[in-house]
Every structure is written in structure tokens, then in C-alpha cells.
């Protein structure tokens, strides 16, 4: 997609509805109101998270804390730290592996096709849309009989494998923009496939790696479904622990909200810092290069 600034071509007659001053003001007001609505949950999270235990009750639920306290954050961190660690141990390796595989696949499917490559690609893509429930029971059974259950390995495996389709798609679309003449030139110079890949394609792949790594990291970090099926208490990632914290009726709201923010911080930071690449991943998810 094109992220360039909108073309502000004003019609010769000027004064079309969308561009008049009043139109602008109305649009801005509506957007502002919607933004406030969208921010409500964030307000609740932050305000409640900073309340001391005594204040995190129904009365005055929407008011600012009288005393700003980090008590909720401290306990939330204690509860979530092991899960945060597990999530890092899952999200990082699976992002790296599936991005690497995706890069290789994308290169072949865009620039070094074999007969039937399109069929294989379509079959891959379907893997992106399947409800993972449809593979979950056999996957679990297989991992149990292979004696692999227990650590974070099952989760790494799952996120890696089921991340291959989207990574392949992103890289394939990206490599399709590399001029075929560059590839041909390398071929004429006698470079084989691996050589071409390593010397022509890989050096320009950084943006696509950024997109896939971010996408994979985010989806592995935010995953809950694979986690509940494939991990036990010692290897629960942060989403499962957050759900446990929040799901028990005895945990006060200040801790719940602080925990929700803590669990979301890594992906939110990635989004705010590398938003451009995050966006591109989202667009690729819609099958749009």
C-alpha cells in the first residue's frame, strides 16, 4: 500500500464539501469524539492500574486515583514475570525461524518458480486461514506421544509452522518487486540459485524481514489458543498468566489492569516505534502486497 501523504488536489472550482473549512471542522470534531471513545479503555487501564488497592473499587470507578500508587504494578509484575520470560522464549525464535523460511519460500515462489509453484502457494495460503482448532487435537496427541510436551518447544514449533504461510506471502510479494533483470544478470554471470539468493536478494530483504519479524513476534506474543492447548503451568506464556490473574475473582482491579498493560507493553512499543512495518504486515494479511 502507499503510505504517502494524501494528494491534496483541490478541484478547480474549489469549495468541494470535504475540503471547506466547515467540513474540516466537522470532520475533526467527529474524529476527536471517536478518538475519545477509543481511548476510554486505555484511560481505565492506566487510571485503575495506578490506584492503590483500597481505591480500586466500584465507587469512584472512573475518577483519578487520590493517591497514585505502584502497588498494583509490583504485584502484577511478580505474577507475570515468568510468563513474560516464556513469551520471549517463544516469540523470538519462532519469529526468526519462520521469517527465514518465509524468505526462502518467497524468493522461490516469486523469482525461481518450479512447476506447480502457484498450487503450492495457494495450499500454503489456506494454512493462514484455517481455524487452528482443526489441527489442535492431533497436534497435541502427536506432541504427547513424541514426549515433547512440557516446555516451550511445542509453542515454538506451532508458531513457526503456522507462521510460514504469512511469511511466505509477505516475502513473495516483496520479492516480486525486485526486477527480474537483476536475477537474470546474476544467472548469466553463472550464479546458481543459492548464490543469487544470497548475493542479490538477501541484501535488499531488510524491510521484508522487519515486517515478518514484527508480525510473527506480535502474533506469537498475543496468542492464547495454542498456549492453552500446548503448554502447562511451567511454560505458560504471558497471555495465559494474564488470563489467570484476571480470571480469578480475588485479584483486585488495580492489579488486573496493571497486568493487562504490562502484558501488552512489548507489542505496543513495537507498534509505536515500528508502526510502518507493523502496518505493512497487516496489509499483507489482507493478501494485498
Amino acid at each position: 500500500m502507499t503510505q504517502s501523504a494524501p494528494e491534496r488536489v483541490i478541484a478547480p472550482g474549489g469549495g468541494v464539501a470535504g475540503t471547506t473549512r466547515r467540513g474540516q471542522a466537522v470532520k475533526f470534531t467527529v474524529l476527536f469524539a471517536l478518538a475519545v471513545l477509543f481511548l476510554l479503555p486505555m484511560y481505565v487501564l492506566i487510571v485503575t492500574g495506578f490506584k492503590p488497592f483500597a481505591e480500586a473499587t466500584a465507587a469512584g470507578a472512573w475518577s483519578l486515583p487520590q493517591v497514585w500508587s505502584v502497588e498494583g504494578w509490583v504485584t502484577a509484575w511478580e505474577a507475570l514475570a515468568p510468563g513474560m520470560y516464556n513469551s520471549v522464549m517463544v516469540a523470538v525464535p519462532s519469529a526468526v525461524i519462520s521469517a527465514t523460511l518465509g524468505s526462502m519460500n518467497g524468493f522461490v515462489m516469486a523469482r525461481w518458480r518450479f512447476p506447480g509453484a502457484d498450487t503450492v502457494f495457494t495450499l500454503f495460503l489456506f494454512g493462514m486461514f484455517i481455524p487452528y482448532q482443526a489441527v489442535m487435537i492431533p497436534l497435541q496427541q502427536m506432541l504427547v506421544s513424541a514426549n515433547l510436551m512440557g516446555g516451550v518447544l511445542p509453542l515454538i514449533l506451532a508458531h513457526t509452522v503456522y507462521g510460514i504461510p504469512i511469511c511466505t506471502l509477505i516475502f513473495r510479494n516483496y520479492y516480486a518487486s525486485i526486477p527480474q533483470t537483476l536475477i537474470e544478470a546474476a544467472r548469466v554471470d553463472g550464479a546458481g540459485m543459492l548464490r543469487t539468493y544470497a548475493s542479490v536478494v538477501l541484501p535488499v530483504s531488510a524491510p521484508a524481514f522487519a515486517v515478518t519479524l514484527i508480525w510473527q513476534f506480535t502474533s506469537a506474543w498475543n496468542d492464547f489458543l495454542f498456549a492453552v492447548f500446548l503448554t502447562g503451568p511451567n511454560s505458560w506464556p504471558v497471555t495465559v498468566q494474564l488470563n489467570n490473574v484476571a480470571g480469578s475473582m480475588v485479584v483486585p482491579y488495580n492489579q488486573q489492569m496493571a497486568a493487562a498493560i504490562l502484558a501488552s507493553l512489548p507489542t505496543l512499543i513495537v507498534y509505536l516505534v515500528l508502526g510502518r512495518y507493523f502496518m505493512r504486515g497487516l496489509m499483507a494479511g489482507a493478501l494485498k502486497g
Partner: protein
Amino acid sequence: MSNSHNPSGVAHRDPGRTTAPARPNRFRRALNRARTWLPGLLLVSPSILLIGVFVYGMIGWNTRLALSDKHAPVQDGDFVGLVNFVALWQEARWPAAVGNAIVFTVVFVGGALFMGWLLGLLLDKGVRGEAVFRTLFLAPMAVSFIATGVVWRWLMNPAPAERATGLNALFVHFNLDFLVNDWWTAPDLGMAAMALPAIWQLAGYIMALFLAGFRGVPEDLREAARVDGCSEWGVYRHVVMPQLRPVLLSAIIILGHMSLKVFDLIIAIAGQQIIADVPAVYMWAMVFEVRDPAKGATIASYLLFAVAVFVIPYLVWTVRKERSEGR
């Protein structure tokens, strides 16, 4: 000659086929060509193997389970045909879960499409602070459904007016008591409330899709319509919107397939309360509590089927269209 000269990537039909060329020649040419593409196939083969086993193999295994009577983990399970598929409809829980998923899907897909379209439309022509708005509306996409669920469960707390929290408390505060409601615990349309957090989370994504679509419409097309006397709204109605059908289709596919398998959000907000039951939660309960693999697999098969019915035509259509556009 190398296959890569062919932009469509489809293997060449040998033009000399009918004129019966010398056999060794043809063989050698095929061999040469294979030498070109074979390394590519080899490079992809680890992924083909993984996808083959973990996507298609597992789907096959799951289907076999669903067609068996393996109702306890230790049983062997014999083939029983579609018995499990029929039996599900005869109980109370399954049709209710399907009904909930349908209500959720309608409200979620409709709501997210409308919100996303509205936001995209408002941002399309550029407005002060556009980048800030965009970043803000899209931010929920970076967060897990579990975190979303934690805060929305608080917001949608169904406690009645006098000890209300969350949005109900806000309504009471602003004297909007008539808005106070039971949210997702309402017996009939509770699932419509359940869709609110999902709309909040996905609207920004749909906005981004529409925005990309709007801006992909060439300015001279809009210009031409204006010269023909179209109002700005008319330009959208008659020029821009018709161009956005592919975007709309992608958006519906994405939202629809997420919606049918919704799981995390429900668990985070309602746990396993039966009032908010959906097929994915039911399946989870079958695996972990009832420990009935065949029944779990049957539910999973229905989920897969529901998604496949519209995703497969979409994928085939997309890849074909790409081909015909010569990519």
C-alpha cells in the same frame, strides 16, 4: 531455456509437441529445465513438508477422529461415519453455541466494517493530526484479545445501577440510566455486546484497509467525475466505492474467519459461562474437561468447514486474479 523467462511461472507447453521431435532432444531439454527449477523446489521442500504434515496431515487426522467413536482418550475408535456430526445438533448446547457465534459474527463484522469505513472516509482527504488519529485507532490491533477482554469485562460489568461499575456507572453519572444494561449477560442479544470489544480492536485495521483503498483510486478518476458535475459525496458513491469491492471482500474474509473461531475474547470476558458459549469454547471444554476427542474433533471440523466454504473460493479467486494481472 529457463522457466523464469515466463512471467506467469506456468511451465511451458512444449510447442513442438505435436511435430514429434527427436526423443533424446526433448528429454535433454526437460532435464535442463528441471536443473533450473529443481533447486527452487528443494529450497521450499522443508516448508512443504511442514505444511503438509502440520496443516493437511493434521486436518486429515482430525477428520478421521471426527468420523470415529473415540469418545475417551484411551479408546481406539472405530469408523462411524457422520454419526458425531448429526448428534451434535440433537443436544441443547451446540445449536445455542452456533446461534451465539452467528449473532456475534453479524454484529462484529457489520460493526467493524462500518466503523472502519467511517474512520477511513473521515481520514481520507487529510485532516489535522491525521497521523495521530491513525496511530490511535490502529493501536488496539497490537494488543492481545486477552488484554482487551480484561478491560472490557470491567467496562461491561453488568452490575445494576446502584452499585454499577464500568460503562453502567458512567451512564448513571451522566443521567443516562436508560442505557444501563446487562451487556453480555443479557439472555437474548448478549453476544451483540460481546462484539463491542472485538469491534474496538479491529475497526482500526479495517480503517487502514479502506484508507489504502481510497487512496489507491487515481485522483484523475475522481477529478473526471467532479468535472462531470458530481458532488464530493457523489464521487465517493459512484467512483470510489465501486473500486473498493476487493477491499470490502478482503475485509469481510478477515473479519469473518476471525469471528467464526472467536475464542480468546470470550474466555477473557465470560470464562466458560454457558450464556456466552461459542463453538471454539465448546470444543475446548470437550478436550480438557469431558475428554472426548471425537466430539472435540467434530466441532473442530465444523469450524474448519465454516471457514473453508468462503476462504477457498476467495484464495483461488485472488491467486487467479493476480495471474491474469500478470504478476
